[in-house]
């Protein structure tokens, strides 16, 4: 019997490999715009972004299916396969539209809006499989709450992201941009629910301790996360002339994240002792790295949510650092940990080398983005021209490109290892024996 969860994971890994290639291409074109004009920057960027998002979603979905399959909970298995097939076919069509230069022109979802229909339809299949499978589970651990929330919220916010096709929204740039970023903020929260749920599930398996996922603190953190998912998105649109209360609400809600950051500091000693205990498990190394990146990116997110700081950093590479730090440092680390744990690929020096290349280059990449962002923000506020600013920051951008190439190389080396390990047991690792 074919394993739907693993199909999604393999799809996710393939998407990441392609995302890295187009990301490296976009980074090179950022400095040398004439490089490979057939896939110019305005095509390379959406290719990179959409494939990176596909990696996160596909592996997050794969984690959920794996849980259902390993615990013999899954129902309507054929709908899961249909979900996967729809995901892959729609993905290929979207990539083809980018190559042909056919766009919907919305940042991040840059494909023509017609492709939203199969995405929403396939998500309904996912919802049917998930809820019909887990309805029999009593006393849900927190990660089931997170996955359930992620599935429902994605559907709602993805619909919301498409409201611009109606005149009521598209005839006012203020309303359209506000609703666009409202939906994006919550939508990112929905995939975070899938990924963080997978991370908690992995930690439960590694530690063999089921109590945390049922604990009060786990649920308090879940509700803090849900509150931020709903209401903390407007730091993206402080500059858009919508009503002031929208920004004020986001500013107040963003401060609840201080509770999460405070808890990380408070529990840091415990984290270190746990790290020593599971140091031989490479999946845990990636979980530990994600913890550090959560701390750094949360601190950055809180800072740029302060309007007085945001006015200088908005529209600069500080925002890119926030996005890249979260998707690579947090989401990707957790998903790599999940893959290592799930397949049992835990004993390779190669993985350890990749771990250090990825994290060190990501550190340089992240700092470079923040440094160039601060300088760019200050220069633009002083009235310097865009072209002068870009020329003055060229050394920063070169460092950004070099660290980005190392980062891509680290991930590609890791994916090469995954491919090698996967082929050793192929096709057995894609199928499950029926009882």
């Amino acid at each position, binding site marked *: 019997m074919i394993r739907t969860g693993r199909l999604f994971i393999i799809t996710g890994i393939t998407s990441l490999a392609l995302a890295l290639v187009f990301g490296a291409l976009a980074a090179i074109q950022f400095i040398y715009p*004439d490089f490979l004009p057939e896939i110019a920057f305005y095509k390379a960027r959406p290719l990179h972004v959409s494939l990176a998002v596909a990696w996160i979603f596909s592996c997050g979905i794969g984690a959920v299916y794996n849980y259902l399959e390993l615990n013999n909970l899954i129902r309507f298995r054929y709908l899961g396969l249909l979900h996967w097939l729809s995901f892959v076919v729609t993905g290929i069509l979207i990539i083809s539209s980018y190559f042909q230069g056919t766009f919907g022109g919305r940042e991040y979802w840059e494909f023509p809006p017609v492709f939203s229909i199969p995405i929403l339809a396939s998500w309904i299949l996912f919802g049917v499989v998930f809820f019909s499978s887990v309805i029999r589970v009593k006393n849900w651990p927190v990660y089931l709450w997170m996955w359930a929330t992620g599935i429902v919220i994605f559907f709602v916010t993805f619909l919301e992201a498409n409201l611009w096709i109606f005149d009521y929204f598209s005839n006012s740039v203020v309303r359209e*941009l506000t609703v666009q970023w409202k939906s994006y903020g919550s939508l990112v929260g929905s995939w975070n629910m899938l990924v963080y749920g997978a991370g908690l599930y992995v930690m439960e398996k590694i530690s063999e301790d089921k109590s945390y996922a049922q604990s009060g603190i786990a649920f308090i953190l879940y509700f803090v996360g849900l509150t931020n998912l709903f209401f903390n998105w407007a730091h993206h*649109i402080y500059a858009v002339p919508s009503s002031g209360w929208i920004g004020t609400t986001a500013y107040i809600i963003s401060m609840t994240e201080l509770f999460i950051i405070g808890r990380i500091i408070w529990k840091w000693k415990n984290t270190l002792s746990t790290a020593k205990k599971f140091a031989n498990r490479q999946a845990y190394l990636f979980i530990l790295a994600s913890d550090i990146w959560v701390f750094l990116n949360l601190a950055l997110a809180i800072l740029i949510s302060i309007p007085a700081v945001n006015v200088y950093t908005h529209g600069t590479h500080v925002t890119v650092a926030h996005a890249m730090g979260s998707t690579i440092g947090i989401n990707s680390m957790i998903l790599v940990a999940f893959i290592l744990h799930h397949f049992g690929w835990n004993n390779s020096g190669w993985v350890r080398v990749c771990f250090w290349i990825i994290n060190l280059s990501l550190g340089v990449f992240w700092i470079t983005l923040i440094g160039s962002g601060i300088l760019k923000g200050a220069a633009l*506020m002083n009235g310097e021209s865009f072209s002068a600013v870009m020329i003055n920051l060229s050394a920063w951008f070169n460092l950004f490109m070099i660290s980005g190439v190392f980062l891509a190389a680290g991930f590609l080396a890791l994916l090469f290892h995954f491919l090698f390990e996967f082929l050793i047991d192929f096709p057995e690792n894609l199928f499950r024996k029926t009882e």
Partner: protein
Amino acid sequence: MRLQNKRLFFFTLVAAYLSYTFFVYTSGTETAFKMSAAAQEGKKVFQDNNCIACHQLYGLGGYMGPDLTNVISSRGELYVRSFIENGTAKMPDFELNKPEVDALVAYLGYVDSSANFPNRSVELTWYGTVNNSTAE
């Protein structure tokens, strides 16, 4: 935490979110800046050519080219037309026809009339907010 409490928290948050969404869609985003038919056409040209991949509006978008929020008032319409019609070393010539260029300029003019970005005359408060009332 008891299941009853979890459900209570969850549905309270969902209800608050739905109310909040209604207000964002209505009073939170009401604006005096109405878009003309030409500007609406220009918006479509902007989207079809994926301009947002490289440019920003209100600081939202790509990083390859400059923010275009106030490009009409700061650089002038002729300058903008020249860029669009010919391209540059960094920006491809998208080979737009005259009505498309006119529409795009109308759209950028509409955006320009709605806000200043970046607003260099801000007043910061001690509790971290920004007073936007000062015009540039």
